[in-house]
């Protein structure tokens, strides 16, 4: 067997392609050493070394400048906020590795962006089917919740993050070609079984982006009315969604989060810590990686919180949201960069580009709204796709401008 393996011809490009897409789903935490260590990290590190040896690991000059700028900005912020340099270093190293790797893979592969989306969506579908098959047996395993579908992940929210772009992609393709109808139904069933408020909001966003880029004003208005009805029906049907909605409303209106559920507590307590941190450091923030120290400093100010909630330090490392985390760590610049990136790269026209944008934008809003990790495995893969999609659109527009008579 060893001899056979040794003599086998290995296509590196194929290995890199498939293992890269597989790595996106390996978000199972195996350790916590200042940063969350996921199962997919060893694959990324091995693949990065492999690309390095075959001269396929590249970093764009602006990419390097952006990371260097982030590091210098954070060191200056840390000087005023007493954030340890090791916290900044671990985040910068993680961001550098993940971003360079995924950009290199996407730019050196023969796959087009649509090919990547197709392959990723197929993997997602596999994860969804596994989720349905595994669902009746979840209660026998000690991994994750027993009554809500979470497939191979620890919680339904991760399942939603990792599969939402696939749903967006299939929905867009189905509208154009009527392909993937059954696949969409399977995904729909998994979202119902996952009973995740994030998932339902994500599906709503997918529908909104499709509607805004395809429907006329009156059709869009009709869709909005249907959306409101769907929202009301969902509130009545899903107790999980209803609990989060009501808890959040009462917690915000009464400024008291002591009686809210864990998910609402996570968002609102981290919003409080972010707000206090922002008041102290509005322009420079506390430096990348410094949020956890602010959390420890401010969380004790909240009174009447159940001890269990405080003990598990909900989202202490990631602020429960990338929008909140960047506001605390980079000051006003952080959310401006995030929103600017999403808004600028969303400016595309043409079916091919809109399909990718409409698949990814709902994911970014959900992912950045409820998860604050900078280098979880999927983030830079989708960032690279989103950015390259915009760059290709700009390139096609320049080409069409140089060829009069061709309308894009």
């Amino acid at each position, binding site marked *: 067997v060893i001899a056979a393996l040794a003599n086998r011809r*290995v296509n590196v*490009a194929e290995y890199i392609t498939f293992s890269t897409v597989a790595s996106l789903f390996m978000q199972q935490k195996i350790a916590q050493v200042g940063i969350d260590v996921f199962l997919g990290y060893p694959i990324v590190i091995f693949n990065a070394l492999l690309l*390095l040896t075959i001269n396929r690991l*590249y970093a764009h000059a602006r990419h390097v400048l952006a990371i260097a700028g982030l590091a210098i900005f954070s060191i200056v912020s840390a000087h005023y906020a007493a954030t340890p340099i090791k916290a900044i270093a671990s985040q910068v190293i993680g961001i550098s590795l993940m971003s*360079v790797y995924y950009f290199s893979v996407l730019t050196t*592969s*023969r796959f*087009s962006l649509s090919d990547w989306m197709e392959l990723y969506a197929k993997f997602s579908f596999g994860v969804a089917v596994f989720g349905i098959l595994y669902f009746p047996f979840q209660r026998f395993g000690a991994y994750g919740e027993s009554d809500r579908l979470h497939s191979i992940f620890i919680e339904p929210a991760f399942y939603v993050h990792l599969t939402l772009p696939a749903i967006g992609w299939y929905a867009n393709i189905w509208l154009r070609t009527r392909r993937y109808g059954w696949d969409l139904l399977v995904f729909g069933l998994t979202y119902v079984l996952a009973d995740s408020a994030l998932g339902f909001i994500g599906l709503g966003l997918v529908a909104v982006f499709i509607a805004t880029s395809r429907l006329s004003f009156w059709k869009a208005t009709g869709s909005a009315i249907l959306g409101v009805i769907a929202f009301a029906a969902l509130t009545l049907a899903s107790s999980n969604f209803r609990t989060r909605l009501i808890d959040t409303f009462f917690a915000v209106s009464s400024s008291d989060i002591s009686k809210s559920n864990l998910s609402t507590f996570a968002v609102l307590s981290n919003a409080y810590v972010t707000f206090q941190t922002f008041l102290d450091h509005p322009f420079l923030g506390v430096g990348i990686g410094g949020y956890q120290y602010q959390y420890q400093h401010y969380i004790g100010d909240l009174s009447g919180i159940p001890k269990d909630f405080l003990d598990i330090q909900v989202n202490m490392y990631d602020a429960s949201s990338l929008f909140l985390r960047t506001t605390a760590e980079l000051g006003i610049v952080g959310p401006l960069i995030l929103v600017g990136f999403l808004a600028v790269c969303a400016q595309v026209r043409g079916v091919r580009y809109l399909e990718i944008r409409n698949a990814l934008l709902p994911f970014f809003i959900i992912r950045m709204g409820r998860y604050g990790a900078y280098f979880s495995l999927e983030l830079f893969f989708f960032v690279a796709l989103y950015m390259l999609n915009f760059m290709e659109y700009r390139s096609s527009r320049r080409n069409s401008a140089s060829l009069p008579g061709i309308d894009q």
Partner: protein
Amino acid sequence: MTIEQAAFEPQSPESSVVIANYLKRSISLSEIMHQLWSGRIIIAVSFVIGIAFGIYSAWTSGPRFVAEMKLLPAESSSVEGNSNAGGALGLIAGLTGASLGSVPKFTQFLSALHSTSVAEILDKKYAMSCRVFAGDCDQQTHQWRKRKGMRAWFNGMMAALSGLPYPNGPHTSTELAQYIDGAVVVTIDKANQLVKLDYQSAKPKFAAEFLSRLVQTTNDYIKSQDRAVTRQYVGYLTAQTATATNVAQRDALDQLLLQQERKLMLTEVDIPYAASVLDGPTVMPVNTALKTIAIYGILGLIVGGLIAVGKHELAARLRKRRA
């Protein structure tokens, strides 16, 4: 095992253009690794120099010790804090239409740790400025020496340029307060109100004594402040009671006087007033040698790497220009 590298080229025309532009402006990390490998001798030499400098730095900086004390709000402080809010002072303030915000004694204590007033007392009682800034002061006579060297010269020149007073005279109590603010690290655990004080010094006995004296002096300072204020209240209320003719008013003043006299008594008992020591001072050695050597070693590697890449780039540009 044979590795095939085929099928890496992009397909669609837009992709080709975008990717080609992208890669044209990209830096090949493999190329950089190659350059670093070519300059491995430079990097190794630079690394060894860094390590050697780290060893020298660790050797010359001498041993370091950290003294640690754990504090809690004193019992009397919480009692006083409560009585202040709804007690006599609050009542007087209420009678005059004003509101009196009471600051807990422990908070006052933490703020006073690095105050000039506490520094002045430390200086008077224990000659602390002279001991802290030992390099500038004769420890036998407590006379300040004239400061010499580059730093003193530079500071003097900068002060003269800005029209500021001469900065190289004897150290003042304000400088001691600033030193305490920077050198004594206060860590507050919000969950249980425990406060940890850390102070590093080359002399272990002095580190422990310094922290003890600081806590004791700050406690005494808060106590003396309270005593002075309460005495004034007692004096005022005694005078008012003597002149009051209305029975109800007299009873009310008697109550207030009783409360203030209780407070005054507390300030005269020799117990921890604002902060009580839970633990310490404990002194532990701080070994920074490995950290120092590692930092200088890494700096050496980075500098060596930059020189290696820079040398390669420079040579490439020169070759290009010649060609």
